[in-house]
């Protein structure tokens, strides 16, 4: 690296340090760095891995088994809060899964160059988050062993799912999203897996060989791959928007005060992006801090860019929150008014204020500063708080709003029970999947980075060093 930098002047050095795209490394070296990051596993990794496995075994599988055997009585759901943390977690994980596609597909479509090193990390979040969402919604069902009845499968009684029910839409939307996002994750992975195949031996070689589908990097293969990726990038965006809109319809289509709100669709989408971006930033900080060679790929410029996005999303979210509140308040329905008052002043009022502070006040106060938002631990903290705030938002929308209805005789608060280990279990399972993936597939899309670096060039015009980007394709 030193030799490479020998003849550069000061400005150029500055550009290279700052921007990954302008700091090219030889392809072989970069490939080796990524391979090394997968192969290097410290004992700490295994300690955390073992710890999380225990949490997953107890929190997710054992507790779920108990709940299946005993019934939902071990959870905290009651009349009138028939839905509790399970649904909160479902919405939360679907929200998390949004940022992956948003970063990957939207930024790809708009050719935002800073996306290149972390599209994979984000896409993994989508798939793994959706798995947790699926777990959460299955847990929520009273008779989970009959959940296949939601599938439109041919049967002799001609019983089909009820297409009037938002839950059926939900199922279709989430399944579509899971399948398409998994495919969308897989397509850009192929060249990298092929790269890994060529650089590994033993079981890994077999593993990558299967995944790489015989990719050799010929011009024809690249053309097909690019086309497929482009189609998917465009196609998955409406799916992404539809999923969370449909999730919001679970609530908006119901005849309940506080839920029956027309703005819920976009409000939920923005909320999903809000928490999703926070989660991406957290993942990137952790990946950068714990995995080898990652400081080269993930740089403050990326945090700076994501931080800016987070700020914009936070403002959008605040607008939709205000809009939702306004419309509901202005509607003047007596029960809705009661509910809005209950949100702020009821026993869970603290949660409402914490939500606003975490989702709006703190991001606005911190992220406007370019240096702060480029500092990993600061954006990590903001991302964490946004996720807590967004989880609270869903908690307020589901169990807290359910406590108030049109029959005051039945109003009752919700106190979570076995939902807590189960929720922690899904979180641990998410991290566990991520950790496993980080050791099995290249977290950095090497070819994308290389492609970007090929397109970027530093040119000198007189005394000025200028960045030029050549049009790809």
């Amino acid at each position, binding site marked *: 690296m030193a030799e490479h930098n020998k003849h550069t002047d000061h400005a150029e050095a500055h550009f290279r340090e700052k921007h990954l795209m302008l700091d090219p490394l030889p392809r072989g070296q970069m490939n080796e760095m990524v391979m090394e990051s997968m192969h290097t596993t410290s004992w700490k990794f295994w300690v955390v891995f073992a710890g999380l496995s225990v949490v997953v075994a107890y929190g997710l599988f054992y507790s779920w088994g108990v709940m299946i055997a*005993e*019934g*939902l*009585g*071990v959870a905290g*759901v*009651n*009349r*009138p*809060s*028939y*839905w509790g943390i399970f649904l909160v977690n479902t919405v939360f994980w679907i929200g998390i899964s949004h940022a992956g596609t948003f970063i990957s597909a939207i930024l790809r479509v708009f050719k935002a160059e800073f996306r290149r090193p972390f599209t994979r990390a984000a896409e993994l979040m989508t798939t793994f988050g959706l798995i947790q969402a699926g777990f959460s919604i299955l847990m*929520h*069902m*009273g*008779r*989970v062993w*009959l*959940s296949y*009845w*939601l599938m439109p499968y041919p049967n002799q009684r001609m*019983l*089909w*799912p*009820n297409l*009037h*029910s*938002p*839950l*059926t839409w939900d*199922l279709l939307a989430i399944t579509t999203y899971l399948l398409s996002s998994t495919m969308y994750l897989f397509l850009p992975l192929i060249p990298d897996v092929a790269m890994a195949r060529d650089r590994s031996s033993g079981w890994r070689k077999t593993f990558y060989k299967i995944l790489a589908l015989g990719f050799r990097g010929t011009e024809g293969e690249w053309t097909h791959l690019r086309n497929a990726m482009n189609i998917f990038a465009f196609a998955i965006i409406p799916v992404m928007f539809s999923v969370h809109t449909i999730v919001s319809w*679970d609530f908006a*289509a*119901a*005849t*309940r005060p506080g839920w029956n709100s027309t703005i819920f669709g976009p409000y939920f989408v923005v909320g999903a992006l809000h928490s999703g971006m926070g989660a991406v930033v957290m993942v990137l900080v952790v990946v950068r801090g714990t995995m080898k060679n990652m400081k080269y790929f993930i740089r403050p410029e990326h945090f700076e860019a994501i931080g800016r996005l987070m700020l914009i999303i936070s403002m959008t979210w605040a607008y939709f929150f205000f809009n939702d509140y306004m419309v509901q308040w202005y509607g003047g329905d007596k029960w809705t008014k009661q509910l809005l008052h209950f949100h702020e002043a009821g026993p869970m009022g603290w949660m409402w204020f914490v939500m606003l502070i975490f989702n709006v006040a703190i991001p606005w106060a911190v992220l406007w500063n370019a240096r702060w938002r480029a500092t990993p631990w600061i954006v990590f903290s903001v991302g964490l708080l946004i996720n807590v705030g967004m989880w609270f938002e869903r908690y307020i929308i589901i169990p807290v709003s*359910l406590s108030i*209805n*049109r*029959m*005051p*005789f*039945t109003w*009752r608060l919700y*106190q979570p029970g076995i939902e807590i280990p189960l929720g922690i279990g899904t979180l641990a399972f998410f991290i566990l999947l991520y950790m496993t993936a980080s050791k099995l597939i290249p977290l950095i899309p090497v070819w994308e980075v290389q492609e970007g670096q090929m397109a970027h060039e530093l040119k000198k015009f007189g005394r000025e060093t200028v960045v030029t980007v050549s049009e790809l394709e």
Partner: protein
Amino acid sequence: MVTLADLKISEVKLSEEHVGKWGMVIDQDICTGCQACVAACAMENNIPFVGEEDSGYGRSMHWIRIERFWEGEYPEVKMTPNQPMLCQQCGSAPCEPVCPAFATVHSQAEKLNLQVYNRCIGTRYCANNCPYQVRSFNWRDYERPEPLPNQLNPDVTVRRRGIMEKCTFCIQRILNAQDKAKAEGREIMDGEFTTACAQACPANAITFGRMDDPESLVSQLAKRSHGVKHLEELGTLPNVTYFKGG
């Protein structure tokens, strides 16, 4: 172009289509809140008891509950008229469209709101969407130690954990009476049978019968001017009419 008048006509049509077959009138002025209906309902319909902890946490399984509120403060305090709250057997029920598995459906023959126990997968969406909050969920397999199961009504399914249930207007009695009437080649007579709650009520505050028969006692009562239907403004077309007070 659809005009306002068209909309009004369709609204009328809608409510005419949804005139229930069976209906109930509850006189809150004479309801003493004695809970006989609650006990009778539990005995007739094999409703499990849930114990102190669960019942205190909003998990009691009563299909009918008696609500009362307070007005004023001591010494000018009054108890509001007891309000037995049960499934209103809505003509246009909010619980029905939201079930993904068609477990809560409208019976075309009886125009009742049915819960198909063996089709229910327990999403509890129907209960969230019920504005009357009259659906109860089997949070656990509630224990009935031997020999208590001897008392179970063979005409009513015993429900297991994880499914939703609610008042059926004692559909087993409706069907029994219909079978009998059919076998005798006649229509069901008004007052030939009644629901368990109406049968037990010592004050006779509950009247049950054919809504679509203008001569029946219940439809005569329902026409009285002081009858109200709960949350009618939601368009649920409930089939239970309440007389609020004297």
